[in-house]
């Protein structure tokens, strides 16, 4: 690893620690990182949009035209139309002409809702209903194991559970009698579902922290040249940078503790 790469890595670790400092309290380092990331991600997006979409999907289509002909003489001149409609979007900022932006909006909304109707109906509703309407495997009701996911019991539970949960969602009729019983079963099923979901959410959040620890460890390894591949460019400057950052963090923590104690004394 080159020293410059190591410096970049150090920069990443510094920003990681700056962001983590929010756990203690809001502070200038966190604010700096927070505002920086908004700008950098927007800038990244601008560049990717430009190189990735505007150039290949619009400019290159009109390349062989001339600007003084308004590109109408290019071989794919019809690409002017979406560009023009797109520019009309910008009238949104004007108080007087913002109604013009509704035309391209109308087109966009019409198309996106139009494609949604048949596909969402078929894939979210029909196919799910179809999957529910399978014949229960009575012969193999417990499948030798109550926790089998393919037994008739599981199929029945999925069927009844989904119907009950749908009933709980869709009918505002007072939940009483048999109807109430089914709706109650529905909410039980939903709660188990949410519980499983929550368990996975905890896992997800913890993973995010693990990733940051792994990056920090990689940085430490790079600083002390402990990696499998020995770095030919390696020198003391790596460790100097490492200790400078550690020193800075420790200093900051001590400073915080001291000011905390002082404020308590007052």
């Amino acid at each position: 690893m080159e020293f410059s790469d190591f410096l970049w890595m150090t920069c990443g670790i510094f920003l990681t620690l700056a962001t983590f400092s929010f756990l203690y309290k809001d502070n200038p380092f966190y604010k700096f990182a927070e505002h920086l990331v908004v700008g950098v991600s927007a800038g990244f997006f601008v560049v990717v949009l430009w190189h990735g979409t505007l150039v290949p999907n619009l400019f290159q289509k009109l390349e062989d035209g001339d600007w003084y002909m308004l590109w109408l003489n290019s071989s794919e001149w019809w690409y002017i139309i979406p560009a023009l409609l797109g520019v009309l979007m910008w009238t949104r900022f004007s108080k007087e002409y913002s109604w013009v932006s509704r035309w391209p909006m109308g087109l966009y909304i019409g198309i996106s809702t139009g494609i949604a109707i048949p596909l969402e109906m078929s894939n979210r509703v029909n196919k799910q209903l179809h999957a529910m309407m399978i014949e229960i495997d009575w012969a193999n009701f417990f499948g030798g194991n109550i926790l089998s996911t393919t037994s008739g019991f599981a199929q029945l539970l999925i069927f009844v559970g989904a119907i009950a949960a749908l009933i709980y969602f869709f009918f505002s009729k007072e939940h009483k009698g048999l109807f109430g019983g089914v709706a109650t079963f529905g909410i039980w099923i939903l709660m188990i579902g949410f519980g499983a979901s929550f368990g996975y959410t905890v896992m997800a959040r913890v993973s995010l922290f693990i990733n940051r620890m792994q990056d920090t460890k990689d940085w430490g390894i790079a600083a002390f040249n402990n990696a499998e591949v020995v770095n030919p460019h390696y020198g003391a400057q790596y460790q100097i940078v490492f200790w400078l950052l550690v020193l800075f963090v420790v200093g900051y923590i001590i400073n915080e503790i001291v000011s905390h104690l002082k404020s308590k004394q007052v």
Partner: protein
Amino acid sequence: MTEHKNIFDRMMSLDRRWIFLFLIVVCVATYTADFTIPINTEAEVESIFNFLDSLPEGDIVLVAIDYDPNNLAELHPMTYAVVEHLWRKKVKIIFTSLSQLGPAMADQAIRDISDSLKVDKTYNYNGVEHNFKGREIVNGVDYTFLGFKPYYALIILGMGQDFRLNFPSDYYGTPLDDLPMMQGVINYDQVACVVDLSGGNITDAWISYGQGRFNFPLMLGLTGVMVSQYYPFLGSGQVSGIMGGLLGAAQYEELADNPGRAKDGMRVQLFAHYVIILFIVLGNIGFFMSRRKRMEGGN
């Protein structure tokens, strides 16, 4: 006032920063200790692995990197495991990333994995030893990175017509027709399957607009937060397999004998879960004790 508080009250009014500190200490301690926990694979992940492993050399898989850096912790390990497995088998890959900052993720993953495949390695899975000879991964031959386009639903539908409709050129600006591996590759018909690694709504679009309309085998790698929502699609056969969170990634790493960050992190994951369960239990003990006290006081 404070003298009247019993231990449970005091426990309930603990500054949350102590909880943070405790969790940090446990995580760091577990991470420093060098041990691994066994990973048991599950059917959801095995079906993905078996499908991809059965692909012959030269087939094309579309890997959709639809996540931003905020979800990289869970999804990057999946990308690394899946892509490395495919490249080892000389399966070609078309990358897309329909998430705003996805190109950064895909670009980084492609660079890293290409580097790691330059050396010879031996893998042992399915009871067979596989010798991999290190090779250069070449853009346009082993993979094509199509890059980002906004409005994912339209793009997923557009790719079903022709990749060139929305992607006249790849991320690095080379026209698709100039890339050797894209010769004769028109749309999803030439792709063996789609692996969507996603941290958001784009998965819904892959299911409804992609698989639903063009009927290709679709496999999902999802963040833990989302994973439970997609089981109905697994049950109905619309989705052929699901990897959920870091655990899913660790299972794929285990299956492909390619231990990486996911397997490395699972021990921390386990102990962090212990801590959180401990907090839930403590919170509940405090809750029941103070409720009993209140009831007694009421009587």
